[in-house]
């Protein structure tokens, strides 16, 4: 059989940080993947480390989810804990954010899609964003960049958009031109020139790797990184350097 080069991971697929990792029950999915299974999946991939959290905080109980994430990941240096708050109960956010900050958590993930898709100008959403930005937390933000991007602008916020689709790249680039803290994951930048366009127009510092493990295949995303027509330095920034900068 002729070997297909793409069938075997190459060094250009190595990812030092994946910002989009979850574990735990997900009712709509055909099966659940616990932490051990997620770690096993990552161990068999080109991903070295991840930013992860329990799905409990997203779907059921933010405070309990945060506690579980911190407890579960305490012994796992390959996974750094991410916190969350529930956008349906913004009044509970303040003590939870203080607790996360006290625990040294640097990333806060928001689940707008799972929590009623709040209007960007709704009081609860704005309150959570203001509290998070004031504490210097990096937002890992789902949803449509066209919807939430403008509400997050002009705050000096550090934001990673987790769901940027290639179809809406122009909107992201318009925002990123004036927002140095706006970044997006490459997960859905699937056109042959999407990653390249970001690098050429606003720079590789605006991209990070986020696979949404365990719900998405990893190889499509590492292959896109491998075959992107960008420099080795830009690839390294996307594959982990930019996250390391945020952690520094």
């Amino acid at each position, binding site marked *: 059989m002729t070997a297909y080069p793409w069938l075997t991971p190459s060094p250009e697929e190595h990812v030092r940080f994946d910002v989009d990792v979850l574990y735990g029950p997900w009712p709509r999915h055909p099966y659940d993947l616990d932490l051990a299974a997620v770690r096993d999946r990552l161990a068999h991939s080109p991903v070295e480390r991840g930013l992860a959290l329990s799905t409990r905080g997203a779907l059921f109980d933010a405070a309990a989810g945060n506690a579980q994430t911190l407890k579960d990941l305490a012994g796992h240096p390959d996974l750094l804990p991410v916190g969350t708050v529930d956008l349906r109960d913004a009044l509970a956010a303040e003590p939870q954010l203080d607790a996360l900050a006290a625990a040294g958590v640097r990333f806060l993930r928001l689940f707008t899609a799972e929590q009623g898709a709040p209007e960007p100008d709704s009081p609860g959403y704005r309150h959570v964003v203001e509290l998070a930005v004031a504490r210097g937390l990096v937002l890992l933000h789902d949803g449509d960049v066209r919807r939430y991007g403008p509400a997050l602008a002009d705050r000096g916020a550090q934001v990673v958009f987790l769901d940027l689709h290639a179809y809406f790249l122009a909107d992201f680039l318009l925002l990123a031109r004036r927002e140095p803290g706006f970044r997006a994951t490459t997960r859905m930048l699937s*056109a042959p*020139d999407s990653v390249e366009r970001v690098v050429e127009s606003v720079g590789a510092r605006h991209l990070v790797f986020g696979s949404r493990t365990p719900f998405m295949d990893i190889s499509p995303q590492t292959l896109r990184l491998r075959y992107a027509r960008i420099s080795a330095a830009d690839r390294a920034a996307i594959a982990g350097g930019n996250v390391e900068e945020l952690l520094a």
Partner: protein
Amino acid sequence: MPIIDVHAHWGPWPFHMDVAGARLNLELMDRYGIDLQVVSASEAVTYDAVGGNAALREVLAGEPRLRGYAVVNPNRIEESAADLRRCLDTGRFVGAKIHTTYPGRAIGSPQMREAFAMLDEAGVPLLLHTWGTDVALLPGLLADLPRLRIIVGHAGGDAWQEAAHAAADCDQLYLEHCRTVADAGRVAYARKAGVPVERLLFGTDSTLVDPCVALGVVRDADFTPAELERVLWRNAAELFGLPVSE
């Protein structure tokens, strides 16, 4: 070992990307080792089926590694039937393509039934854009159309579980999993549901989507070498009657 891509496009798209031109099709095919690609014209898919198909006829005349799908607009069935014959007569078109979103016709609509009947008579495979739970209607719709083979494009999109069960229930359906959002476990789910490897096809959505996305799905599906051969080219060669040198 060759690769046949059964779901690709030629032409521009109205997004922030520059992917028009058959040269890019070929450049990406070379990069990933794709030998043959079956394309539809983006103009035909999104705007003018007859006009887009005519433009593709000209392109195919000069590109031996590309084959064509004639786009059928289910809202203009007589016109599309005549245009399909024009395309097939060139010898460079091997099937039909129907999108559901752009013509605004769901799989269960009367117009789609009429289109399916026309294609059953024409005797060529159909690449159908599927995106949603109405993919589950396909086995019932094909019950009286024994000749029509449908490639379930995108394998139902977000309704990939429903698409898997539909394909398991009907041997006239072939699953093709290209999609930007590469949900994990789709291929394994389909196989567990009862879809044989002989009815899995490789498609990319290139040049709208970089082929490496679909190749990554294949890599993560952990096929055996024999299964890989089936999925990457042999099933497509048999379905379309395409000549491929091993």
